[in-house]
């Protein structure tokens, strides 16, 4: 018997089932189809300005920084200012996201590179799929538009998120993922990012910048 068959047989023997019971199969199919929500904390269940305010507060709680701009056209200037304020070089890597590409980068002196990171970039910008107010989390999906390496390799990561994409809770983001990719399908990687990289492994002292970005900066675009 193959290892697979052996393991399934042992699970079924222990549970006292055959695996062919219609009722059990229905219960499982039903749960996978309906994907019922559990307990949703009230904290995030706010809308409009209140939700954006909660999101920003929670982003700061996660030790990231956050700023707001009125429109996408203001993003390049905002990033240039952030880099200048932290004495960082005026270089920036990004993917092919059309929302980022169409921004007026020539208004700034930033040197822009495109495509995934090979590990030597100091600064990168990505566009989030969405934000989650409950915990100040950014939801990123992998693609050529926003390569996953940009989320982890640069020292300073800037994430742009549209105010309209900031949801109350994780469940709302999953609904959008299902709408975009189909029920039961996922992009290769979904990254939830809540703050900059850190480690407490040496004497339980919190230190930022373990393997991922030392700084995480979030820009909310109001539109």
């Amino acid at each position: 018997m193959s290892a697979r068959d052996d393991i399934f047989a042992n699970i079924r023997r222990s549970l006292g089932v055959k695996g062919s019971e219609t009722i059990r199969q229905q219960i499982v199919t039903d749960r996978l189809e309906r994907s019922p929500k559990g307990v949703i904390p009230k904290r995030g269940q706010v809308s409009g300005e209140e939700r954006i305010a909660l999101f920003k507060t929670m982003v700061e709680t996660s030790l990231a920084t956050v700023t707001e701009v009125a429109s996408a056209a203001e993003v390049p200037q905002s990033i240039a200012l952030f880099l200048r304020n932290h004495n960082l070089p005026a270089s920036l890597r990004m993917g092919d996201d059309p929302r980022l590409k169409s921004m007026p980068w020539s208004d700034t002196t930033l040197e822009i590179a495109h495509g995934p990171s090979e590990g030597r970039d100091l600064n990168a910008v990505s566009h989030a799929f969405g934000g989650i107010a409950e915990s100040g989390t950014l939801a990123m999906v992998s693609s050529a538009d926003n390569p996953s390496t940009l989320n982890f390799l640069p020292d300073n990561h800037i994430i742009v998120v549209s105010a309209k994409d900031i949801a109350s809770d994780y469940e709302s983001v999953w609904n959008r993922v299902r709408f975009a990719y189909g029920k039961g399908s996922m992009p290769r990687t979904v990254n939830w990012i809540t703050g900059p990289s850190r480690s407490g492994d040496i004497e339980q002292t919190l230190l930022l910048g373990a393997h991922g970005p030392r700084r995480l900066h979030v820009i909310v675009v109001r539109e």
Partner: protein
Amino acid sequence: MTVHSTSPQFKQNAARALNDVQLQKALGNVKQGFIDKRQMAADKLPEFEALRDSARDIKNHTLEHLDLYLESYEEKVKASGGHVHFARDAAEARDIILNICRETNARTVTKGKSMISEEIEINHHLEANGITPVETDLGEYIIQLRNELPSHIIAPAVHLNATQVEEDFRRVHTHLDAKRDLSEPVQLLTEARAVLRERFLAADVGITGANFLVAETGTSIIVTNEGNGDLTQILPKTHIVLASIEKLVPTLEDVSQLLRVLARSATGQELSVYTTFSTGPRRSTDADGPENYHVVILDNGRSSMLGTAFEEMLRCIRCGACMNHCPVYHAVGGHAYGWVYPGPMGAVLTPSLIGVDKAGHLPNASTFCGRCESVCPVRIPLPKLMRHWREREFERHLTPATVRSGLQLWGFFAKRPTLYRFATRAAMGALGFAGRQRGRFSWLPMAKGWTKYRDFPAPQGETFQQRWKRERKGARA
């Protein structure tokens, strides 16, 4: 399978740990940090207790239907272009992983933190076959340099102090300036970051564990604070996920419930910094990510725990809260437990996986104070399960003769209430009389194990039952 375990020597391990100055200093960090942080995170979320119930119910439901969710998961992984391998035991899992590494001509393998990889001792196996495994979680990297096992499931190097880490880095990173300053923890972190960055970029295969597997989508999930698990899986050509059968959950909604209790229980964070959902290899339109995606699903004795009293242990989501709150763990640290899983969860799980004959001391290393159960995010009745192991150990005559005869003597009296009351009254009366001056004893016959380290408080001359009776009467009058 040969398991390299010192669990049978728990008593000697514990005695050594109690006299280890460095260890005792480091363990102070556990007592201080974790408990307060968890409590604050729980207090900030009014729904925390309800979420714990929800987490428990999701795991119970999944375990009851594990065969079917596992089938659904497997189908989804395949549909997304990944491969699923099943391993009955550690040896099979090691061979599967080695074969995948050989197929890709791998020379170095980076590793995200995975307790199951410790369970199957994959690092030794890879090394023996000419492949270099590199642990990338900072704590795991440190203990790999020291050739040690993790002493905590989420803080593997919690038993060490910064000066010890400095010594290890100086010993191993010989290509760096010998005069460099490493007196601050942040300098150690920066050095590890630079050294490991090169290893990430050079690795041929990345191995990660999985905190959860999602049946709905065929997704594996890891949570990290460092981002090492992500660099481990997106940079090499091949990503291998190593997971055990009980990591399954039905849907993305279900895993969101569990994630709400995991980080809060572990480190007191709202959420870990990086929660990563991986499904299959990179897509044709992706700019990066692994070309091959393999999942190795390990049983190693778990399927036999289903349908028994120990099924509840399979709910465990490895947050570490039980050991963070355990007075025995605080006193002796994780290595004393002698194998991969320490603390209360290890005391229950280890006998299931390597046998009660080898690990019988572990469920005995508990005061039954109940703190572990009170903080467990999936409400595993850890003291009850430890008690089950003690019963089995007794039934199988594995308990030492002195303990057995002591328990039998106590059992004789306990089953005869009149005799029990008479004997305890006589003993308490005599002890109360003898100790009425000092209020404590520094020596008692047959209690040397206690009085060697601390005084025994003298009873007040009355038994609990007598007092209970008296106060009830008083209350009624």
